């Protein structure tokens, strides 16, 4: 048990270290950072000055260890644009993204799992087919297209502009982008919960439960559903991990003031410190979410505990 937890923690640490190193390599190879920071028409001497100031004249491995040291001290650099630390820029935007992501996950979970359950219980008839057709539509639909369609419908049908509330975050304003963002995962949750529930329903222990006189409702709620939920946890973990990275396109379409928008803007202005920190934060949430899923399995599936 402690061995299990320790090995999972070690794995998470190694993954993070690899990510940090890869980010370093990619940024070094994507061009000279000093040239990127200097004004476009700056003479070579100015660029060299920048390089010296940033420590770029030192050998690569010294740069790498310095970089690691900075990261372990929590120093992720400053935005060249505004001069603020990249962490504070990120934290400013984080609530909006979490609000949008959380809302869309809530929609995907409730709608997706209910649809999947309905489909599984009506296997083969029109309800099942309808749900399956919807789920194919849902994850085949690109969210930039669906988002535009939502805005269009709002404007033409209801004379309301849904395409962005500026910097304000509101309960009504979050619905259109959350629907757009949640559509694809609603489809996969529907499909996944349907097949998981169908598989569980055909297990011998449910037949045995019927033979013991346990009613259909009770068999479904107390026996089939908890077992069918186990594989869903992995999917929920992936969704949680993608909470920050997943909304880049949707935030652009709806002008949502979140991390995704910041990322796009930072890339456009070649704000390396900010891009670097956002990439690390995205990787970090993925690793932490996976770690949470692993530990959650310990709680919900007793079979994992003995291994």
């Amino acid at each position, binding site marked *: 048990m402690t061995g299990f937890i320790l*090995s999972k923690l070690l794995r998470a640490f190694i993954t993070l270290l690899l990510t940090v190193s890869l980010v370093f390599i990619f940024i070094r190879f994507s061009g000279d950072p000093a040239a990127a920071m200097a004004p476009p028409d700056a003479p070579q001497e100015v660029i060299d000055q920048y390089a010296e100031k940033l420590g770029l004249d030192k050998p690569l491995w010294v740069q790498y260890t310095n970089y690691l040291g900075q990261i372990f001290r929590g120093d992720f650099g400053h935005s060249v644009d505004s001069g603020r630390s990249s962490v504070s820029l990120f934290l400013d935007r984080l609530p909006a993204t979490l609000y949008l992501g959380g809302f869309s996950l809530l929609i995907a979970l409730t709608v997706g799992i209910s649809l999947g359950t309905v489909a599984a219980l009506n296997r083969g008839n029109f309800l099942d087919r309808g749900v399956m057709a919807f789920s194919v539509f849902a994850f085949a639909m690109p969210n930039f297209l669906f988002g535009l369609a939502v805005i269009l419908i709002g404007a033409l049908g209801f004379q309301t502009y849904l395409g962005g509330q500026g910097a304000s975050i509101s309960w009504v304003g979050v619905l259109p982008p959350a629907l757009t963002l949640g559509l694809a995962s609603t489809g996969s949750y529907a499909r996944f919960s349907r097949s998981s529930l169908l598989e569980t329903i055909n297990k011998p*222990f449910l037949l045995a439960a019927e*033979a*013991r*006189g*346990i009613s259909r409702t009770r068999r479904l709620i107390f*026996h089939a559903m*908890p077992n069918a939920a186990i594989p869903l946890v992995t999917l929920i973990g992936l969704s949680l991990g993608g909470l920050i990275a997943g909304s880049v396109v949707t935030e652009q379409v709806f002008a949502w003031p979140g991390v995704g928008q910041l990322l796009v803007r930072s890339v456009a202005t070649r704000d390396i410190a900010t891009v670097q920190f956002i990439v690390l934060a995205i990787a970090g949430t993925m690793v932490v979410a996976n770690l949470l899923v692993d530990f959650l399995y310990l709680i*919900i599936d007793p079979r994992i505990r*003995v291994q």
Partner: protein
Amino acid sequence: MKNTNAAILELSNVGIGLPLGADRQWAVRDVSLTILPQQTLCLVGESGSGKSVIAQAIMGILPSALPLKEGKIKLLGKDIPKQRSPNFNLLRSVKMGMVFQDAVASLNPIKKVGHQLEEILLVHGVSRKERKSRVLKMLSAVLLPNPESAYRSYPHEMSGGQAQRIVIAGALLLNPSLLIADEPTTALDVTTQAEILELITKLKIEFNTSVLFITHDFGVVSEVGDQIAVMKDGKILEQGSVKNVLKNPQNEYTRSLLKAANLDTSKKKLKETEEILKADNISLTYKKGFFFNQTKFKAVQKVSLSLTAGSTLAVVGESGSGKSSLAKCLLRLEKTNSGKIYYRGKDITDLKGAHLKNFRSKVQVVLQDPFGALDPRFKIIDAIAEGPIIHGSSWNEANSRAIEMLSLVGLTPQSAERYPQEFSGGQRQRICIARALIMRPEVLIADEAVSALDVSIQVKILDLFEDLQKRLGFAMIFITHDLHVAAAISDSVIVMKDGRVVESGQTSSVFMNPQAKYTKMLISSAPGYQGGEVL
């Protein structure tokens, strides 16, 4: 009030339909059975005979594709409705309890077994206080050594035997008049099987219940049965008291099944010829996990064996004894951690490349599950001819030899163009044998090659192995958990437990005069064993 003479269960002319397009119109037809108080009726038949369908019909859990069309089922003098009915199910579960073949699978994997048993009392309105004490009492009645800890266990933490005790406890919790047991010991090792059979017999008296016992094994029938009904293709061929039917079977089919169940070592004698395959103190350890949670499992520990040309060596043991791991080592599919393997005197332990490929053609394998062992997208001829083609035969030559092999194993040449799904289990095993023998191996390793088959098919496949061995002269290593099979086919035998060899020698002397305590126990727990003679 139980009337001592009235039947507990009465089936009259029961007919259950099969869906359109099945190989026959009726799953079972004209089935009439009577179970009297405190009696055990054994329903015997091979797979597909319809015996489990009858159990499901009585229990009211027939799948909707199999409707109860004809006849009547009376429980304690009352008609059972033909359709699945939720209200009646609750009532019915008070009067009948059911035990399934795979006990672990018939329990919810993520709930503690104590809570699962309590749930049965809960849905029948028993108060919270009373529930736990009744469950614990029941757990000690099924002779679980520590009822309190069993109550708190999850199904996967139990052995197959312990889980079956839990399921039996659940079935008897409401003190039913009838216990239905559908192949309850088939998935268990012989020693555990003996304990469970003893337990069912004991509880039958203690709880004053009748038993409908479904099995394919005559040894089991002779241990537990009062009455017997033999089924084939949905019909009852013969029924009567166990004593009469086993001693004096009237039906030809019953006789053939009984013959298959005999422990007969008279056929074989060890020939002294040259040694072809030899293992010298080989060990295999499996490692699992990553860094901190690495665990080691010693599957094979210092096993030695010797196989002479043209002879058959049986490797006998219960599940987990390491017999399949041993086969993988001998086939060079697993790398041994220590010890040496010799083939015709040559050390092959670390063979590589072309030498290993050459060795592979000399040692072939037939596996347990004939359904999983054939690629469903390969035609039979392609599956059989694949080996020779890989080893350099031309396509034409390989194909014509594949057709020859088909007739050698008793299949028609027309089978060549068909796919595995079109064949029965026994036929598929013939295909697997053809696929192994086309390589002209000197050693054939059969890993539980007849365990998945029905008894009457088993006999035919064993005969086929023997016949082919006489004609082609290969040596065989026959891995099995079934003492009957080992006795029927082998010249010599090794008995394995926990990865080690506990006894080895000539088959007749090991079975007639076992030395190791474990071998003695294994032989005496074989169902139907009564002092020196089985059946």
